[in-house]
């Protein structure tokens, strides 16, 4: 019965072929360093899931942002857990993505035919840092406020166009409600959309080319 249903679905979706291509593909000799990409993907999904749950209570306005997070931490069942995972997962994700990049660099896995995978990976690293940058402001506490003040001023120090960069980041000359709402928008819609798209291409390229073997003396 179940077998029949499975076969019906498989015939139309090609689950077997998908499984073979995605999870059963041949690998060079297994190595724990090769798992960092999967770890990054896992963290991305975890951040996505916990982030979606946080938006249930979080309110991106200067009047409510701080209080709503206090409420998540103290007033909501398991709010501390959901936010804790999101908070520490963010730090971990930046770390894991960065070590993943170092691994690819050290093992020279960015060479032909994987140059595009590497370039897209650079985009993914930048987007991940962008998530960290925009997410840092959202608690709207002193640290968030002044960190973003300083970081947007760094953007403002660019010669000639700095002033425009600063105002584009802040949504005006000052750090305000406009800054908070545009950082929120970037954090939950724009950058995640870019990340998801790039991850799709990144994964496609990995499945297409397979993983590189670690260089040995011959290389």
């Amino acid at each position, binding site marked *: 019965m179940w077998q029949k249903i499975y076969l019906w679905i498989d015939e139309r979706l090609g689950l077997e072929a998908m499984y073979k291509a995605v999870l059963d593909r041949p690998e060079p000799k297994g190595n724990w360093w090769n798992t960092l990409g999967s770890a990054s993907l896992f963290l991305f999904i*975890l951040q996505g899931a916990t982030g979606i*749950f946080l938006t249930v*209570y979080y309110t991106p306005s200067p009047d*409510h942002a701080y209080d*709503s997070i206090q*409420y998540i931490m103290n*007033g909501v*069942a*398991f709010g501390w857990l*959901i936010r804790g995972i999101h908070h520490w997962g963010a730090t971990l994700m930046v770390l894991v993505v960065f070590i993943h990049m170092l691994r690819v660099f050290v093992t020279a896995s960015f060479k032909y035919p994987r140059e595009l995978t590497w370039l897209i990976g650079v985009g993914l690293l930048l987007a991940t840092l962008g998530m960290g940058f925009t997410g840092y402001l959202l608690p709207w506490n002193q640290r968030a406020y002044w960190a973003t003040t300083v970081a947007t001023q760094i953007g403002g120090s660019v010669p000639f166009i700095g002033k425009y960069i600063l105002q584009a980041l802040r949504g005006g000359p000052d750090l305000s409600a406009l800054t908070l709402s545009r950082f929120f928008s970037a954090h939950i819609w724009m950058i995640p959309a870019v990340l998801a798209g790039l991850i799709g291409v990144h994964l496609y390229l990995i499945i297409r080319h397979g993983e590189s073997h670690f260089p040995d003396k011959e290389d």
Partner: protein
Amino acid sequence: MSGSNQISRRDFIKVTTGIIGGIIGIGVGVPAVGYLLQPAFRKNTAEAWIPIGKLDSFPVGVPTPFSFTRTKINGWEKTATSYGGYVLRKSEDPQDMLILSSRCTHLSCRVNWNPDAKVYTCPCHDAKFSEEGAVLAGPPPRPLDRFTQFKVDEESNLLIFFSEKQQGG
């Protein structure tokens, strides 16, 4: 090398991944459901006994005003609402009294006791209520609400039982 009872390396990895994935899924999933659905099971704490003053401060035979404030907390937002009413003691017996809400049943304006005409008048649409709260004139659809549950404690404080339903929200 691998006997019929032995699990292959491949299957071991599959099973381990499945188990760990399941644990993580449950570990995040169950709290997430609690996080979402907790408001459904939160107890409504709007009901309470409110002290409105010493029994002695309410003279017999004259409607005497009182007021109190209730603070409601929704999430991180506090809303303070003030309520008021009149106590009419009909005799020295602490059980023999009528406690009316001063909120007009028409549009929630606050009614005032007019001692000369012996009626409650509403400033908004000139409604009139009798000493007992019955509608005498004007647009109100029903008599003034009553605080039917009240008591006097050992220190002769008068307390009324407040619930939101009674006050019409």
